[in-house]
C-alpha cells in the first residue's frame, strides 16, 4: 500500500448508509459507507461549512442538514444549493423581518461549491484514506 494512505476506521464502524468523521493530517474528513463501498470527502458543506455527517446519506448523495444542499460523495460535486426555508404565513416582528432581509441579502452572494474528495482503500477490514 502506498505511504499516502492512512488507516482511518474499521469497516464495521459504519453501517451501510452511514457516515463518520475522522481527522487525518489536519483534514476533517467524512467517510461514507455507500452499500459497502467507502468514499471520503471533506467534512464541511460547500455551502456554509456545516458538518456533513449530521446530514443524510442516500445512495451516493449526501444532503446537508443545515440548508439541504446536496453533493455526490463519489465526486464531491455540488448538485444543488440551499432549499428556501418556510417562514410560515404570518409576518415576523419588524426587527426580525429586518434581520432576515439582511441575512437574505448576504445569502444571495453565497455560492455552493463542490467539495474535495479523498482516495480510499479497504484492506484487512480497515478503511484507509489518502488525505
Amino acid at each position: 500500500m502506498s505511504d499516502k494512505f492512512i488507516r482511518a476506521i474499521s469497516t464495521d464502524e459504519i453501517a451501510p448508509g452511514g457516515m463518520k468523521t475522522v481527522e487525518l493530517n489536519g483534514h476533517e474528513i467524512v467517510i461514507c459507507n455507500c452499500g459497502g463501498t467507502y468514499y471520503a470527502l471533506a467534512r464541511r458543506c460547500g455551502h456554509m461549512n456545516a458538518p456533513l455527517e449530521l446530514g443524510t446519506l442516500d445512495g451516493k448523495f449526501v444532503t446537508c442538514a443545515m440548508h439541504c444542499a446536496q453533493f455526490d460523495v463519489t465526486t464531491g460535486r455540488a448538485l444543488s444549493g440551499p432549499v428556501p426555508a418556510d417562514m410560515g404565513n404570518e409576518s415576523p416582528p419588524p426587527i426580525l423581518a429586518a434581520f432576515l432581509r439582511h441575512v437574505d441579502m448576504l445569502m444571495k452572494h453565497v455560492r455552493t461549491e463542490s467539495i474535495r474528495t479523498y482516495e480510499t482503500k479497504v484492506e484487512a477490514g480497515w478503511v484507509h484514506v489518502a488525505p
Partner: protein
Amino acid sequence: MDTEARKKALQYFFDKVVGPMGFKFTPDVELKDFLLEQEVMLEAKHGIPFCPCQPMRHDRGRDMQIVCPCIPFHREHFDAIKRCWCGLFVHKDVTDPNSLPQLSPKDVGLE
C-alpha cells in the same frame, strides 16, 4: 451546478418516491430528459424543483403542491389519466404514453 449530474440525482430520488405509488418515469426518454432539465433549471432559480408545466402562484401552500413529484397532491386526477400533468411519470402499466388521452379533472368527474 452540473446539470447532467443533478438530473441523475433527481432521477434517483424521484424513482424511490414514485415507484411505491404505482408510477414510473415515462418511457419517452427524450421527454424525460427535457423535463428533468427544466426542473434542474427551476431548482437553480428557486431552490426547489417545481413542476415545469405548472405556474407558480407565489403562495407557498399552493406552490408546494407542484413540487415534483407532485403525485400525492393530485393523485385522483393522475390515477384517472394514468400520468402526471407534464408526463414525466406514468402508471407502471403504460408503455405508450402518447396514446393516453389528456383529460381535465372535469372530464374525469373530479370537478
